[in-house]
């Protein structure tokens, strides 16, 4: 839902499952890959499953979050919900707040994405007792 309309980044290392058409093919033959393109739902499900691992460890959380933020998209609320619950299992409130800051930054100029995410995550935030950066006054200098 939050994917940009025009995906300019190819991010070769990360796009393990997101194969793209070669727009700049100089020859008559196109370099369409024959691999199956993952749908948005599959992508989301994969990441929700990743963070839902019951015995996830701190390294896996870090790796997952850093990879996710590296993608050219803002993660869906359900992925963030899964990640925040993983923070809870790891007793790591600071990382939970950091995740919220990171997705706000990922939204870039689209100022309406972050409030939507917080609105969707509100039940989880209340349940787990995670304060947003705004609540703590950390969104300003």
């Amino acid at each position, binding site marked *: 839902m939050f994917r940009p309309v025009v995906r300019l980044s190819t991010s070769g290392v990360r796009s393990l499952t997101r194969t793209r058409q070669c727009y700049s093919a100089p020859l008559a033959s196109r370099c369409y890959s024959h691999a199956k393109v993952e749908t948005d739902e599959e992508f989301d499900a994969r990441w929700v499953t990743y963070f839902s691992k019951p015995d996830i460890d701190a390294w896996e959380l870090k790796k997952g979050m*850093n990879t996710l933020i590296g993608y050219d998209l803002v993660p869906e609320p359900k992925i963030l919900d899964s990640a925040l619950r993983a923070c809870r299992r790891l007793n790591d409130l600071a990382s939970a707040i950091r995740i919220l800051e990171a997705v706000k930054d990922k939204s870039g100029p689209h100022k309406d994405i972050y409030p939507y995410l917080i609105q969707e995550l509100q039940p989880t935030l209340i349940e787990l007792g995670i304060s947003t950066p705004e609540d703590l006054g950390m969104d300003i200098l």
Partner: protein
Amino acid sequence: MVVRVLNLNQMLHLTAGRVGGLFSRRAVVGLTNSGARMSSHHEVSDQVDMSQPMYWDRLDTPLPDRAWIDVLDSKDKSLKQKEKGPWTALSKEEKIALYRLKFNHTYPEMKKPSHEWKTVIGGMFIFFGITGLVVFWQGHYVYPPQPHTFGEEWQAKQIQRMLDMRVNPIEGFSAKWDYKNKQWK
């Protein structure tokens, strides 16, 4: 004066010994520094142990390899214990403290603009100015006198000669001269 001539082998041993001494000193400094580095504040002059996980503030890496503050005093430790319980029990100050233990800068602090550009532009203009002075000095003291063909009188004679020769009479030089009225068109 006695000059001791060393053969190649002996010379190699000498240099190796000196270099080996250098390495062992640096290794010791590195080890002690890695112990000291585990505290919260890092001076740039410290020798960073690159084999240990490092902390960095990066917008695209929200969770770095290491927490900001590793060495916890008793107050921090008890806060960490409280973190294991429900987070609803934590006060705002405690939550902020937990964040500050794990991270150095917040995202807004990372993105804070600096005044570096003023230094850069200022430095640029200073160097332009110095260059200008050098060029001016050069023009005054270094260049030889201009050739005599650059003088007013010579140039006038040159132009007249070009017109007499009908240089580029169709589209160029002489085409712009009105020969009848003896003036430029």
